[in-house]
């Protein structure tokens, strides 16, 4: 039974929250895009959600045998209002292109990398710093992958978000 490294536990708790929020958010966005008949974006977000699931499982493995602090959503400390890898709801558009969706994911990966890097640099606990560094590297590689995929995508057409029809009144 290993002694709980408090700083590591705090870090891993944040990491789990980060990954799980990211995964849940991608899932919501996928559902929303599917609802709005944007299959490209929907599929992409769903894939990101699945990958998020994997990351979450990997992190969970690391926490075996540890007691993690149980925090409410608002008790975590993040650089901004929400965890770094979580896409803001307001960043979406129902006619967003795959390029747009990927662009958001890329921003997420970079933000996550920045977050982990900062943790790695500032942590006084070597194990925490090492773990954070590892996560940062992984985020970097995800970002690189996304960057590569983006390059092979066509640019957005000038008025891709325009629609001829007026908004509809459901009720």
């Amino acid at each position, binding site marked *: 039974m290993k002694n709980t490294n408090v700083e590591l536990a705090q870090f891993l708790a944040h990491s789990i929250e980060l990954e799980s929020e990211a995964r*849940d958010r991608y899932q*919501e*966005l996928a*559902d*929303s*895009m599917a*609802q*709005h008949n944007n299959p490209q974006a929907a599929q992409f977000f769903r894939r990101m959600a699945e990958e998020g699931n994997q990351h979450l499982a990997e992190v969970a493995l690391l926490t075996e045998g540890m007691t993690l602090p149980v925090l*409410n*959503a*608002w008790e*975590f400390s993040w650089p901004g*209002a*929400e965890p770094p890898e979580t896409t*803001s*709801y*307001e*960043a*979406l*558009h*129902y006619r*967003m292109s795959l390029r747009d969706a990927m662009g958001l994911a890329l921003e997420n990966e970079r933000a996550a990398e920045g977050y982990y890097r900062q943790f790695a640099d500032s942590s006084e606990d070597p194990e925490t710093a090492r773990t954070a560094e590892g996560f940062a590297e992984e985020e970097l590689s995800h970002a690189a992958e996304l960057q590569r995929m983006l390059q092979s995508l066509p640019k957005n057409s000038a008025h891709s978000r325009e629609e001829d029809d*007026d*908004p*509809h*009144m*459901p*009720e």
Partner: protein
Amino acid sequence: MTDSAKLKARDYKSAVKPIWCPGCGHFSVFNAITKAMAALAIDKDDTVMVSGIGCSSRLPAYVDSYGFHGVHGRGLAVGQGLKVARPDLTVLVMGGDGDGFSIGGNHFIHACRRNVNLTYIAMDNEVYGMTKGQASPTTPIDWDHSTLTPHGPGVRPFKPAALALAAGAPWIARAYSGNPNQMAQLIAAAVEFPGFSFLHVMSQCITFCPEQTDWKKIVHERAEPALSDADQAAKLFLHEDGFETGLLYSEQRASWPPAAVETPSDGAMDALAASFRVSTGVTRQ
């Protein structure tokens, strides 16, 4: 009662997926509600979400609890009737600025006054979204994007927090859809508050008010603790910019109705019927 193991926020979501426009602020409110429920370990079976009509009123169907989707503007009346009849339930009423401050204005005023122990979440996007973008009581005076009021409403908007205070609401807070975690904390506090709690959420409408994405630049979090003096709160609410987030006002006031003092006796119903019976002595003078 559901399983007592603590549920996650996502466990409070039903199978029905939201139809809100991507970019809508209400996703944040939904997110925050489920996080608050998870934090409080609220029993799904003992919770009812009540709403009126509008985009924000669609929310109850998305939560895995009991729900009541009523008619335009009347959510607070339904919620208060429900809570008074079933004080054991946790009741959240929600709706938009049109639903709550226009057609529902009278019910809003009296709900603040009555102080029944429930939580009211008003999702304010300063527009009637569902009916395609008309001005609402909180729309800025010069917003001219509606064909119904092409020169702008020309009438000053309400200040919902000031109205709530004047009508007697003992707990007033504000949140912003760009910060669902802060909102979750406020919702949890609102539910726990033993009285009428009013959460005014600035929740952007991406379709009819895309300019509201600029709200993020002017939203600011309250640094001081909540006011408990009504005079100071009046001053704050009448003069503020309407974008300060956090718990703004909180006072101690006994909620209504007070708990029943006596349990009814078994024979109470019979006694009522008997009260109409005449004691006859059939003797003529």
